[in-house]
């Protein structure tokens, strides 16, 4: 019956290999999380504009005008008012602009919020550069306090010609409870 042993050994060996594939695919499932972020960064596709940009020698393309619209929204669970001071701007690619958003905390408690940006059309994300943004850090606000949050940006001169309007939307989330985790997104 030596063959019995060999068949059983072969069965066990193959079963372990297949279980290895299953474990590998579990790891792959989790690896999809950083892969997703890398893909979105490289192709600029989910509207999350990249981190802080350096504003260098200005080359302004005055022949072209792009409309930039600003939207502000508050997630449920955050007792704040949040609105852009200017809703719409006409800009030339390469020009540095400064805009701001107002926030007001209705509640009787200190609340910390985090803004998450989304730019539309998504493919334009690679060409929208922020030199300064309140969304780079979380924003604490004391009870009933208000503030003006600054943001500076320029549109890259390489912006594809078919894009005439950019819509930048911010959503503010309440992260007071999460703060110990030390989150900071751009």
């Amino acid at each position: 019956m030596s063959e019995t042993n060999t068949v059983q050994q072969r069965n066990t060996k193959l079963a372990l290999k297949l279980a290895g594939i299953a474990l590998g695919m579990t790891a792959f499932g989790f690896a999809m999380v950083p892969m997703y972020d890398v893909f979105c960064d490289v192709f600029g596709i989910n509207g999350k504009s990249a981190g802080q940009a350096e504003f260098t020698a200005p080359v302004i393309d005055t022949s072209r005008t792009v409309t930039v619209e600003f939207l502000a929204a508050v997630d449920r669970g955050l007792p704040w008012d949040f609105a852009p001071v200017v809703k719409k701007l006409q800009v030339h690619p390469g020009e540095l602009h400064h805009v701001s958003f107002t926030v007001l905390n209705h509640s009787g408690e200190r609340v910390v919020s985090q803004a998450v940006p989304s730019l539309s059309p998504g493919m334009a994300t690679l060409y929208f550069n922020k030199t300064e943004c309140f969304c780079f850090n979380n924003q604490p606000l004391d009870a009933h306090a208000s503030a003006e949050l600054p943001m500076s940006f320029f549109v890259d001169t390489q912006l594809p010609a078919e894009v005439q309007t950019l819509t930048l939307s911010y959503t503010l989330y309440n992260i007071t409870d999460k703060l110990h985790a030390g989150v900071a997104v751009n």
Partner: protein
Amino acid sequence: MGAHAAHDHHDDQHDHKPTGITRWLFTTNHKDIGTMYLWFAFTMFLTGGFMALLIRAELFQPGLQFFEPSFFNQMTTVHGLVMVFGAVMPAFTGLANWLIPMMIGAPDMALPRMNNWSFWILPFAFLLLISSLFMEGGGPNFGWTFYAPLSTTYGPPSTDFFIFSVHIMGLSSIMGAINVIVTVFNLRAPGMTLMRMPLFVWTWLITAFLLIMVMPVLAGVVTMMLTDRHFGTDFFNAAGGGDPVLFQHVFWFFGHPEVYIMILPSFGIASAIIPAFARKPLFGYASMVYATSSIAFLSFVVWAHHMFTVGMPLGGELFFMYATMLIAVPTGVKIFNWVATMWQGSMTFETPMLFAIAFVILFTIGGFSGVMLAMAPVDFQYHDTYFVVAHFHYVLFPGAIFGTIAAVYYWLPKWCGNRYDEFWGKVHFWLSMIFVNLTFFPMHFSGLAGMPRRIPDYNVMFADFNMMSSIGAFGLGLTQLLFLWIVIKCIRSGPKAAAKPWEGAHGLEWTIPSPAPYHTFTTPPVITNENAHS
């Protein structure tokens, strides 16, 4: 050949088996486990069907008749989960257990003890899932696709039971799949080369590979949900830097291969039944194998066609649109081969053949609506409407379930040694055929007109189509009780079946007596070119 062969030498009586409840609890016999899987699947089929009838009762007329919207949502969710993970997948695993060892001349599955585990954890998974319906806050109510943040931030407290039950189902499927692969690779009888295997074995082998590739991803995504809910992670939470769209990517990376997991074994069944009743060998055996493999391969690169409306860049939409349409090519090859097998055959129309032909026709209708949905520009109109519901019910009910029913009628004489009542089998078929179309065909129209899925109430303009669907659904549901009666009647009585009850049938399973003895092929048969399947 395996450990069981060694034991068998000590048994005086070949058909010796343990008795009582312990036979079923401790069994490692592939036929016992196959039987348990099939009965479990049928129980879940009736459970999920009952939920579908509650849904259709509520939708019989516009307005809220019977249920709160939140209960309606739980019904749509749990109906989907029970049918996918409780009815279709275990039914196929049951067929695999019964048939694969007999078809390749093996004495049993390769890992019999694991086989026992993979079945016996399933009832507990579904006990957990269904018990969550009775908990405070209700059961899962976010759709069977459980998109974040509906299932994370806004999920009811019982969601954790749902998560744990998905873990158990996943473990069960992975163990079952490993067992199939090891059996097929290591226990084939001498001369049973890969390209001589019956197509049911081939399609199940490919299905098993899909299972071990994607069930772990499903386990991963529900684990991420669990940590998002309780352990402060932010995989799908935008506030913490995560992204709800990521959930859809990970889910559908599992979800699309999953839909092929639910259809490939049916392809194998049709490829066994159609040649038997056309009395001709299967047309294009090798192309069937390659077509099935290409479908499985393509299933990994089309997942985002489920999410055309999330705001993907144009390049992404085009890639997923063309890749999806490409799947129609190997699928078309298969349909062509089945039709060509029937072409000029000496066909007879016994119940298994009727279900198999209906499978080919109705699955093709589901395939066509799939091609329509694959077109990104028009998908924006179809997305999340009843058109989608019509599409996937056409590929699942007349696809997966008609396939399973055809298999049960075809192999039932082998399993229980008696012939079923042909008259009632045909009644079952014709009622199912009429009602399945009455239920799901009108959904194409209500969907195209804009009726959204997963809603308990709707605009009065959809009232007529919904009334037709509801009447069809009740007819379809009750007809399946007839199926239960036919099967029980066949097990208890009926004319004795010959070893090969179908004139045109091919394959090793027909060389052993009916009912199949408890242990078969303890001495492996030798397969030569003359007695090979194809």
